[in-house]
């Protein structure tokens, strides 16, 4: 963790922070490699002076090939099951692969490798096999102001879906929300000897900017963070939704309501205690999740609260999710999709008259 004064601090974007985390760990450990579609781009065209054309979906791997070369920065063909499987095999045999699956929407093309192979290998082999694997996935729907027309990325390129990963015992799933914790969680993920999924919100990549120390540091996996103190209720947010919760908390302050905000940060293993302790102090909770509701992480957290903090609750446990629909294309429809501060406030007002 940061020790303060000694470190040089600059403002970086979320994507730049991820990039720096990967770069530092690649310098530190030659076993760390990066794989994925177009994570460099222009593969095999160095002789034409062309390298590093893309840098991945979030541009988080840009520049790595220039420093570490094509042996450690591998563009892959479009074969998610194959290259995630290769990463699994590489992790079992001495490498520490960081593999990018462009969008979580493509999880269906490599799900077996994640849920049957990476997640279970250590357990099934009685603890013999280690699995130092990081899988990066961009997720999320365009939020914010509705445009008058046009559209977003549509039903197959806008999903959130992390609950289908968090559901699997053995997988760790982290959801950074700021440039600072993006870097720290990524370094923790790379150093972890088990499989860690890093969910990277598409619309935080460039938008979330913040102070980031130059040196390597870790943000521990399995810890939620109270990002705002409050006493009247708890708002619990995941990924970009933590920012929405903060926005809502700000507005509530204006009407004299003091909201505590918990940024979940890790979905699996979930840091129940931080959430439960907060609720036991505030007696009310709204969980905000960009994913669709059924079997979502919002419902999961709500259920844990209803089971373990029931006696402290003064009101129903509220969840705010995307609607139970695919993501629509048209901007006017999409604008209704992602939970907003307004919807969080509506939920709060149902709890607190």
């Amino acid at each position, binding site marked *: 963790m940061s020790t303060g004064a000694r470190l040089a601090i600059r403002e970086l974007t979320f994507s730049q922070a991820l990039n720096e985390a990967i770069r530092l760990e690649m310098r530190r450990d030659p076993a760390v490699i990066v794989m994925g*579609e*177009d994570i460099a*781009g*222009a*593969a*095999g*065209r160095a002789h*034409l002076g*062309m390298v*590093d*054309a*893309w840098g991945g979906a979030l541009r988080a791997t840009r520049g790595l090939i220039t420093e570490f070369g094509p042996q450690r920065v591998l*563009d*892959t*063909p*479009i*074969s998610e*099951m*194959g290259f995630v499987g290769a990463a699994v095999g590489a992790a079992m045999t001495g490498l520490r692969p960081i593999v990018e699956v462009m969008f979580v*929407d*493509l999880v*269906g*093309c490599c799900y077996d490798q994640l849920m049957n192979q990476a997640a279970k290998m250590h357990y099934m082999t009685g603890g013999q096999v280690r699995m130092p694997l990081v899988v990066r996935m961009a997720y999320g729907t365009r939020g914010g102001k509705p*445009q*008058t*027309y*046009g*559209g*977003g*990325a*549509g*039903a*197959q*390129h806008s999903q959130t879906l992390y609950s289908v990963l968090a559901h699997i015992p053995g997988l760790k799933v982290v959801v950074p929300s700021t440039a600072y914790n993006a870097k720290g969680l990524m370094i923790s993920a790379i150093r972890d000897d088990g499989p860690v999924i890093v969910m990277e919100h598409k619309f935080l990549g460039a938008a979330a900017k913040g102070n980031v120390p130059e040196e390597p540091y870790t943000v521990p996996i399995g810890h939620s963070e109270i990002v705002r103190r409050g006493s009247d209720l708890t708002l619990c947010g995941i990924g970009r939704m933590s920012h929405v919760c903060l926005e809502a908390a700000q507005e509530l302050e204006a009407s004299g309501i003091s909201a505590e905000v918990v940024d979940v940060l890790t979905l699996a293993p979930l840091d129940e205690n931080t959430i439960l302790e907060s609720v036991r102090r505030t007696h009310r909770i709204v969980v905000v999740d960009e994913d669709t509701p059924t079997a979502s992480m919002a419902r999961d957290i709500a259920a844990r609260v209803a089971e373990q903090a029931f006696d402290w609750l003064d009101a129903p446990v509220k969840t705010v999710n995307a*609607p*139970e*629909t*695919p993501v*629509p*294309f*048209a*901007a*006017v*429809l999409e604008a*209704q*999709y992602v939970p907003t501060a307004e919807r969080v406030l509506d939920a709060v007002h149902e709890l607190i008259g």
Partner: protein
Amino acid sequence: MIDRPGQEAIPREGLLWMYERMSLIREFEERLKWLVETGVPAGPVHYCTGQEAVAVGVCAALEAGDWIASTHRGHGHCIAKGADVRRMMAELYGKSSGTNRGKGGSMHITDASLGMLGVNPIVGMGVTHAVGAGLSSKVRQSKQVAAAFFGDGASSQGAVHEAMNLAAIWKLPVVFVCENNGYADATPVEYAVAVNNIADRAAAYNMPGLSVDGQDVLAVWSAADAAVRHARAGEGPSLVECKTYRYYGHHQGDDPHRYRTVEEENAARERDCIQRLRRWATTKKLISADELDAIETKNRALLDDAVRFAEQSPLPDPSELLTDVYVAEP
């Protein structure tokens, strides 16, 4: 353009239709590009400019009742199969008059009544759906044929291998059309694919495979026509690889000069499929330059109209967010 066996059988109307469709696709993409670059928020779009001959040559070999499965780069396939450019443009504007009522967008444009199994941006999946359509044709003995478009990048997807093996063992009426435009995003085909000609993989499924010049609409048509006849006769699937080129970046935001040279682009433009058909048909005096100019003028007007239609169409009602989640409400 080389003379092709059977091409004398293409009636003048056939040539005119090919020219008209290729020109309409070109006009659609160029207009869309202009709109996007001047601020129309059409979502992610993948222009197929340069590749028109593949869509048109293949669809020229199909009948109205046949199916196509398409990719994220699908505008050309849709237009070649007969889609209404007004409703396509309205879809890109997210309007309720769009092909998909504004709920799909560029990567999902579908007019099911025209045998479109859908534009599908999960690379490779459309190919499996075409195999299913072929199965449907065989079980229902309807003699319909399904053509599956997919890219050079998609050829590495396991689902495509599985689909080809299925079509082969069941002898399904499917034509696999690989649009090899040299790139998957920023990844060159010679890096990503272990063979020189993707068509050579046909042997792995015991089916005919042919690699053709995808900038020559008659070559594409000729190969597709043979494959469609083969399929319709119950002889099973074929693989046709069309070597083509996309003139622009992978999507509207991509600068291709980070991974390919201007020289390569210029060489590809020399082989422009529309100009080649024009040169060939006018040299052979099958069609006059005036006729072709008139087609282009008409297509420009169609696009003017399409944009007007899209602009003037109403937005979807907010309640549409929640409709059509289930096919039959429980």
